[in-house]
């Protein structure tokens, strides 16, 4: 299994039945594929729909039904469409149960940086700042390192997305709960030792 599939499958275990979930583009969007259809989980696309379904069969795409990345989607039974004020009202008002987002860096206390690399890549924050600040539970889904360098760091060198700490970090090496005392280890992925983890983790591990 590829790291990103492992990560997505593991994040899926954190999603409770009957919840409202917002998945970021890229790796986080893979999580939907690991949620049983009968779990009663509703996915929000922040461009204006709750009840986003899978990509439609070829020839059945509708130009007016897309996800936040602009890709074609379907609507499940019980879906609701809305304008951006309602969509972000749900996000910022604490009505979204879980958001899963990618990360460029997270520090040991859980502060996330995921929206720009100054001088190199400035895509803009889109809805990320609202999601991190507003969702009830924030999960970061990312590979543990980028070109060998730790993405979990002592202090973020990239601009922060929010001062609110995220709740959980899932990588191919394990599941981590950041906190004031440093990075807590919830579980290590099969075959990962504490030494191996420490070697590629920039933040202190919690006692």
């Amino acid at each position, binding site marked *: 299994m590829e790291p990103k599939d492992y990560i997505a499958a593991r994040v899926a275990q954190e999603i409770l039945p009957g919840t409202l979930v917002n998945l970021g583009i890229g790796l986080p969007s893979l999580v939907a594929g690991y949620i049983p259809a009968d779990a009663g989980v509703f996915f929000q696309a922040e461009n204006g729909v709750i009840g986003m379904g899978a990509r439609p069969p070829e020839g059945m795409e509708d130009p007016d039904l897309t996800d936040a990345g602009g890709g074609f989607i379907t609507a499940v039974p*019980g879906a*609701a469409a809305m304008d951006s004020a309602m969509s972000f009202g749900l996000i910022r008002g604490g009505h979204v149960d879980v958001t899963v987002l990618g990360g460029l860096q997270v520090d040991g206390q859980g502060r996330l940086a995921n929206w720009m690399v100054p001088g190199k890549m400035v895509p803009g924050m889109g809805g990320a700042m609202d999601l991190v600040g507003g969702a009830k539970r924030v999960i970061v889904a990312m590979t543990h390192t980028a070109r060998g360098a730790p993405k979990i760091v002592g202090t973020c060198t990239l601009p922060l997305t929010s001062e609110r700490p995220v709740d959980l970090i899932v990588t191919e090496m394990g599941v981590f709960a950041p906190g004031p005392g440093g990075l807590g280890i919830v579980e290590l992925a099969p075959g990962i030792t504490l030494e191996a983890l420490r070697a590629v983790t920039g933040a202190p591990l919690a006692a």
Partner: protein
Amino acid sequence: MKSALKTEAAAAMIPDGATLMIGGFMAVGTPHRLIDAIVAAGPRDLTIIANDSAMPGKGIGKLVSAGLVARMVVSHIGLNPETQAEMNTGRIAVDLVPQGTLVERIRAGGVGLGGILTPTGLGTLVAEGKRIIEVAGKPYLLEEPLRADFALIAARRSDYVGNLEYFLTAQNFNPLMAMAADTVIAEPEAIVPVGVIPPDAVRTPGAIVTHILERPA
């Protein structure tokens, strides 16, 4: 998916001292079955956030007549002499709020704003004790968000996800209040199977509705 809740069970959830947002405008778009059940259950010292106190014997007026209300945050009590009398004797504390400001304060509570700046009320009794903030050289009142323990919502139709559809002027405060309470109880006139309400007709997504009340008897 949610199974429909018995009206008595819904009313029994509301403890003494609870804060309730109740939809409706002069008793139009008000959850009447819930109100009748609350009058029967009789919780005391309620705080009611609503547009108005309707009329004696109608809608929110029934809660006033039953002596269940300690405080009201409303824009208008002119058609309910009982509320006015209770206010004058001090039995009910009434906060009168301009209607548009009431709307925005409820919305702010529902969408996570810390407050809003409005010119409405400047230079009037409404401004007393409030902060004035200048933006671009103009003064505005800082109005703070409102939230409630329960929102009691009247809808035309619900499905079993809790998606709500409203009708004409019965919509009013309902979709706003459904965003601004810890527990949201929707009283639909009809419950339809999931998939029947078109996505664009949904004004309150089921994800934020805690309970759907059973169909009318």
